[in-house]
């Protein structure tokens, strides 16, 4: 088994795709179904039922489980990117920007019911996308998205490295939560203590 990156800026799943409304219903339905049943036993019927659309409609646009999952991954990557943009849009200082990314990331990870169901019950289905080469792709998606926002406060190379650093922190606490289970508090705490406190270099050392 070779791991295809789960989080990547690929092409949308299908050119003859469903309307955005149907696609959104299918994605939401699939996420609810995964949160309830997991992936191994997930059927297209489960998704249709959760999405509130007919099996025939679902099959017309998404010929099988693989197509549904590709749409989910595409939609979730976009949601992650949009969420980062929104979290960062309001920040006026570097400290606010760092906390905004950390807080959004921690809530997105800890509050993602489908992801949490898989981590608890079918870790093998999702860990390849969050560790080693899978982590590299996820870190890249996050770093690329965060970089332009942090460029308001530092040079582009340092902005990219800092964006990636924040994503690492969220991923670490997401996969190995602190003893009290409060991922967001832990992430915000270390960002406040160990990231905000440092002085970013004036220029990019390798630029």
């Amino acid at each position, binding site marked *: *088994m*070779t*791991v295809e990156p789960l989080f990547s800026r690929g092409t949308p799943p299908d050119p003859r795709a469903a309307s955005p409304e149907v696609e959104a219903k299918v994605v939401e339905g699939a996420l609810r179904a995964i949160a309830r049943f997991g992936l191994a036993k997930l059927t297209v019927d489960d998704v249709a039922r959760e999405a509130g659309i007919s099996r025939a409609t679902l099959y017309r646009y998404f010929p099988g489980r693989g197509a549904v999952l590709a749409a989910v991954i595409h939609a979730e990557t976009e949601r992650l990117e949009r969420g980062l943009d929104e979290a960062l849009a309001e920040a006026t200082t570097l400290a606010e920007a760092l906390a905004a990314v950390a807080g959004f990331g921690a809530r997105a990870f800890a509050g993602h019911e489908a992801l949490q169901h898989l981590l608890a019950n079918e*870790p*093998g*289905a999702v*860990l*390849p996308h969050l*560790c*080693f*080469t*899978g*982590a*590299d792709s996820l*870190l*890249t998606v996050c*770093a690329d998205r965060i970089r332009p926002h942090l460029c308001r406060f530092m040079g582009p190379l*340092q902005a*990219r*490295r*800092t964006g*990636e*650093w924040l994503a*690492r*922190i969220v*991923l*670490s*606490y997401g*996969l*190995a939560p602190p003893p009290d289970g409060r991922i967001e508090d832990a992430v915000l705490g*270390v960002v406040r*203590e*160990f*990231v*905000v*406190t*440092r*002085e970013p*270099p004036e220029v990019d*050392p*390798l630029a």
Partner: protein
Amino acid sequence: METGSVQERVLEGALASIGRYGLARTTVDDVAQASGVSRATIYRHFPGGRDQVVRDTVAWEQGRFFARLGEAVAGAPDLCVLLEDALVFARQALAEHAVFQRVVETEPERLLPLLTVDSNRILPFIAAFLVPYLERERDAGRLRPGADPASAADYVARMVLSCIGAAGVYDLDDPAEVRLLVREQLLAGVLAPGAILTPRP
């Protein structure tokens, strides 16, 4: 024969079997053959049978990996150098670990849950290893004022583990980038600003 050594022979044999057949297909018979320990003895030491042998072997080898890492870097003069050495050693040792490379490529869905469950052990292990080095930095007045060595050790342990697993934007084969990673990211908020000598590219 001593119990410890029988167990170690079984674990060694199991590691070789996993390298040859993978996590899913390794059997107690394979392990018996590779280790020279009888099936009955294996079951006596590993009552959970095949699954326990496989699970314990992964945990044991992961523990050995980090113990070797600790030995390799223990003599470093300060925390910056210690972490630079650790990242270089770990990345290289992981790249050269044939069994890991094979299994992470072919059976990540089986390997990673075992590594992640066990990293609940590994994180405290790395943090405990780092605490004395952070205390030494504190005693030398080089820790950022107000930073607590124990919570700093937990944070640094997590980030080191993260960087060993995924190098991200850094090329960890390049010593200059390793220095940059350690001094401008990893320790930038842990040590006092003046305590970090900024590397020259």
